């Protein structure tokens, strides 16, 4: 998330199944100017502007046929240059090693590590660049560690469009303190700069009938760290909404207080830039065959203002019925203005925003391709 001042204008970075778009807001976030498509026809899984320099923009790209890559721009998309060495697993002499299908997640590293980035991939892999995304190398030992490979499971265990490593989080107080999550494969923490990671799954539930003590069975969908309290983590999981206050190790299922008819299944989770007790989720239908649509065709954001003790429905302006879309894990985000602006992109290609922390919603784009990721950035 960007850290704008009051005079900043917001740009919303929209990554879709068929390319990327920028939406430039005016000072009041009322009028939006569209710039795009970029990379028309490419699958863009994530697009992030580096808040440390305000100019380095990375886009994780692939196509239906060609291999994955990362594109880099330093002029907000007026020109792009491909990574000289995209994320790739270490080759094995027998040719039986894994291959990156797509780069799924991009995270700028610590503020004291300029030009350093982490990338999470499908299948699950963790990579790092120390030159602003030009060259990438496998990071840590997890990509080839036998225990981690077991926890990552097989393709049969993964989410339908590929198992993923995502939600790479960096403690702003300590660049050596890292978290990541895997779908599937649980939540993991390192306190030594990625030299080793350990699971952090206590309290997280798994699909009925399976042993929650087995890391492989855990499917965190999206994990976030409070920008103002790095000891507070929130998580939207395949099996509920959770909060973890460090140094504690047991996740609390705060989604239990969601309305029963809505449930606490979903993909994205968004945190307030200044209030660690405030978070937003976008529930979806996780019943029966997992339709992955809005429950009852009535999309709504839910917010908590007290760390998950209570939840409030926020749907003013959203369709009241027969809206069968949902929001993917990277496709909902916030800006850092006051009041906070919220943004989400739908599986049906609509981009919605609220300039008042979710109280009212406005659709600012329709007919885009399926939206995979929404990020915000502040431009001076």
């Amino acid at each position, binding site marked *: 998330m960007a850290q704008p001042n009051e005079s900043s204008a917001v740009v919303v970075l929209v990554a879709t199944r068929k390319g990327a778009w920028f939406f430039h807001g005016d000072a009041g976030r009322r009028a939006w100017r569209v710039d795009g498509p970029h990379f028309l026809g490419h699958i863009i899984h994530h697009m992030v502007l580096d808040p440390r320099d305000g100019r380095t923009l990375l886009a994780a790209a692939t196509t239906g*046929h060609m*291999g994955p890559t990362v594109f880099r721009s330093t002029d907000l998309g007026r020109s792009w240059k491909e990574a000289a060495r995209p994320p790739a697993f270490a*080759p094995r002499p027998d040719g039986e090693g*894994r291959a990156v299908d797509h780069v799924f997640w991009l995270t700028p590293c610590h503020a004291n590590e300029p030009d350093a980035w982490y990338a999470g991939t499908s299948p699950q892999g963790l990579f790092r660049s120390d030159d602003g995304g030009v060259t990438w190398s496998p990071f840590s030992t997890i990509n080839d560690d036998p225990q981690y490979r077991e926890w990552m499971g097989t393709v049969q265990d993964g989410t339908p469009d590929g198992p993923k490593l995502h939600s790479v989080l960096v403690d702003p107080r300590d660049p050596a303190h890292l978290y990541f999550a895997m779908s599937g494969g649980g939540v993991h923490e390192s306190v030594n700069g990625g030299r080793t990671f350990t699971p952090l799954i206590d309290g997280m539930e798994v699909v009925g009938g399976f042993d929650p003590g087995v890391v492989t069975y855990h499917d965190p969908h999206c994990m976030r760290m409070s920008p103002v309290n790095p000891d507070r983590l929130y998580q939207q999981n395949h099996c509920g909404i959770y909060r973890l206050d460090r140094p504690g190790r047991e996740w609390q299922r705060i989604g239990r207080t969601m309305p029963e008819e809505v449930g606490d299944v979903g993909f994205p989770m968004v945190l307030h830039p200044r209030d660690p007790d405030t978070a937003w989720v976008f529930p979806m239908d996780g019943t029966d065959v997992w339709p992955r649509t809005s429950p009852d065709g009535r999309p709504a954001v839910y917010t908590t203002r007290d760390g998950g003790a209570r939840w409030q429905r926020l749907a003013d302006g959203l369709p009241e019925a027969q809206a069968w879309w949902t929001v993917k894990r990277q496709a909902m985000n916030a800006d850092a203005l006051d009041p906070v602006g919220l943004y989400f992109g739908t599986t049906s290609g609509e981009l919605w925003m609220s300039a008042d922390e979710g109280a009212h919603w406005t659709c600012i784009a329709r007919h885009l391709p399926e939206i995979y990721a929404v990020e915000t950035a502040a431009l001076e």
Partner: protein
Amino acid sequence: MNVLIPTPLHSYTGKAQVEANGATLAELMEDLDRRYPGIRFRVIDEQNRMRPHMRFFVNQEAVFDLSLPLTEHDEVVIVQALSGG
């Protein structure tokens, strides 16, 4: 030798027909990557396997082995498989 490049890879070559050299198909791809950096990884993965939807034809014969010997008069065609929908 002459190599026919599919349209999705023209962003690397700028044209459909290019010249490249190699005693094998693998060496040919290495030479293409020297001339057009990045093109190989879009076609061949990090385990030296052809990507699932990319196909190679040498003298109109489908090829699945990157160690296939080539001669300078061979005609190589890289094709994006006709899949998708």
